[in-house]
């Protein structure tokens, strides 16, 4: 197929491991195979991603799951109705702390293997002691207010009795700057997507204390964001793009390709990081500290319908946290908007699946603290939280 016959698609992305499907679809010919010339543009902030997709510079974008929801609910600037056309993977995030904070947490009985409850309780005990001693509250970094990272960190903190707005400080930093901010003592810890946890671990600057998969197993992270209007105008191109990303994900999921994938992602034009920093999440062996230990878990999953088919219930969970932390005011109407934003129909028709193959709910919601999320009673779920804004 000659270049002249390809449909051009411009995609914005942030340098993170879960941009892998876009990177591989674009560089390994999976997009071209579907008649698409996929042009990737690396961005420096999620705000730029939001603005540039809203004004039409980008056709699609690598977005934080809650971002299209915030746009559809009009609780962000430059808000236009958006869709999460597919998930770009599950998991992939971790919480990393400075060496000094890790030493303190060990003193309080933190788990060595990333288990969130014991480590969280150690942190809670430390936070109380620091407050009693009149010391500055601990500072944590997240990548964006409307992000899985913000909600995971907050869920974990609140789940062990730490109020994320009163007992600690949470600020926002771009992912690649987190390791440096930790080294310069601007923050004591952060929640970010890979490889920006492993970068700190391998260089001996930080310790991973827990990870997304341990807080909320098999949970969505980035999505393929698209405006409702672009999706409506270009259904065929969008379907082919999704097919290309699905084919790219099958390549990415093969363990024998992990080293090559890490090398491609690490290139200066993409993530611009050491290739070995990309490997742990790709091989399911996360190294928590410079000298170990290593945990084996499927901390980042990109292939299969389970990792790609949008699920309205996941959208509802993100919404419950938006309300919990004062970003949105609950309304029954909003529930419909959220479910539509995370509806599986675009992906299903791209894959030729039956329209209601949203059997994903069967996977359930298993949080580290044992609380149940009932998508049928979002209001009741939110009201049940003692710690909230």
């Amino acid at each position, binding site marked *: 197929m000659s270049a002249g016959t390809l449909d051009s698609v411009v995609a914005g992305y942030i340098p993170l491991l879960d941009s892998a499907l876009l990177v591989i679809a674009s560089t390994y010919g999976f997009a071209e195979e579907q008649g698409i010339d996929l042009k990737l543009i690396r961005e*420096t902030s999620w*705000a730029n991603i939001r603005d540039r997709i809203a*004004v039409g*510079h980008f056709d699609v974008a690598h977005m934080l799951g809650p971002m299209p929801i915030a746009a559809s609910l009009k609780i962000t600037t*430059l808000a236009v109705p958006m869709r999460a056309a597919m998930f770009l993977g599950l998991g992939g995030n971790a919480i990393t702390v400075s060496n000094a904070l890790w030493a303190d947490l060990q003193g309080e009985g933190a788990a060595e293997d990333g288990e969130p409850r014991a480590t969280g309780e150690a942190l809670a005990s430390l936070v109380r002691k620091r407050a009693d001693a009149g010391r500055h509250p601990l500072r944590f970094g997240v990548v964006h*207010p409307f992000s899985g990272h913000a909600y995971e960190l907050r869920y974990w903190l609140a789940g062990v009795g730490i109020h994320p707005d009163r007992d600690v400080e949470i*600020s926002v930093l*771009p992912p690649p700057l987190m390791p440096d901010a930790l080294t310069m003592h601007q923050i004591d810890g952060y929640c970010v997507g890979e490889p920006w946890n492993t970068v700190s671990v391998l260089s001996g600057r930080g310790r991973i204390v827990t990870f997304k998969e341990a807080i909320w197993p098999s949970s969505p992270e980035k999505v393929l964001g698209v405006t409702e209007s672009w999706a409506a105008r270009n259904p065929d191109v969008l379907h082919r793009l999704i097919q290309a990303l699905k084919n790219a994900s099958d390549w990415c999921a093969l363990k024998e390709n992990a080293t090559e994938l890490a090398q491609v992602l690490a290139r200066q034009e993409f993530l611009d990081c050491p290739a070995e920093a990309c490997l742990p999440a790709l091989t399911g062996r996360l190294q928590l500290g410079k000298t170990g230990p290593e945990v084996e878990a499927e901390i980042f999953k990109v292939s299969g319908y389970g990792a790609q088919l949008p699920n309205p219930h996941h959208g509802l969970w993100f919404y419950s946290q938006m309300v919990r932390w004062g*970003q949105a005011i609950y309304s029954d109407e909003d529930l419909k908007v959220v479910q539509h934003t995370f509806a599986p129909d675009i992906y299903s028709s791209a894959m030729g699946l039956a329209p209601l193959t949203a059997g994903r709910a069967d996977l359930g919601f298993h949080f580290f603290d044992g609380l149940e999320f009932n998508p049928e009673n979002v209001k009741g779920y939110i009201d049940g939280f003692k710690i909230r804004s």
Partner: protein
Amino acid sequence: MSPALSILVIDDNHIRASIIEQGLHDAGHFRVILVHEMDGLVRRIAEIDPDVIVIDLENPNRDKLEHMFQVTRAVQRPIAMFVDQSDAGSIEAAVEAGVSAYVVDGLKKERVKPILDMAISRFRAFSRLTNELAEARSELAERKTVERAKGILMKTRGISEDEAYRLLRKTAMNQSRKIIEVAQSLVIASGLLEE
């Protein structure tokens, strides 16, 4: 008459920031503060308490700024991104030009729009000129740039060619920069001021 607006320009490109500052001065805005360093940005904004913030889109701190604007205890007055829904074209023009603006709550759009429009036109002109320069960045082009810079100095200062070259060299030495860099800044700046 309403009190003068204070305008904070966040741009780590010194030349571009100065060009915007000049444009704002020319438009009668004298409370313009330039910030190049990102360290302690939050504290600086709280101190300056600006009415309008202009920031370049290459800046990786936009997410941090927007978060700070949401958490109101860090700033004295609510600040939001400049979005005039009736004028989608100007938002697109701003993003196209690579600039964004944030404005305190309650400011009338008639007062803010000219500031944004000015920033957009200066950003555009700057990128057009830097693109032209980048394309022609061969040794020959560098020599031509120095020639152009000398010509500008001879014309504006009424000095000889030798004196113009010595002035470029002295400026470069004083700032520990290359002559070509000084010449480029001069050519860009004078190109913009002719706009």
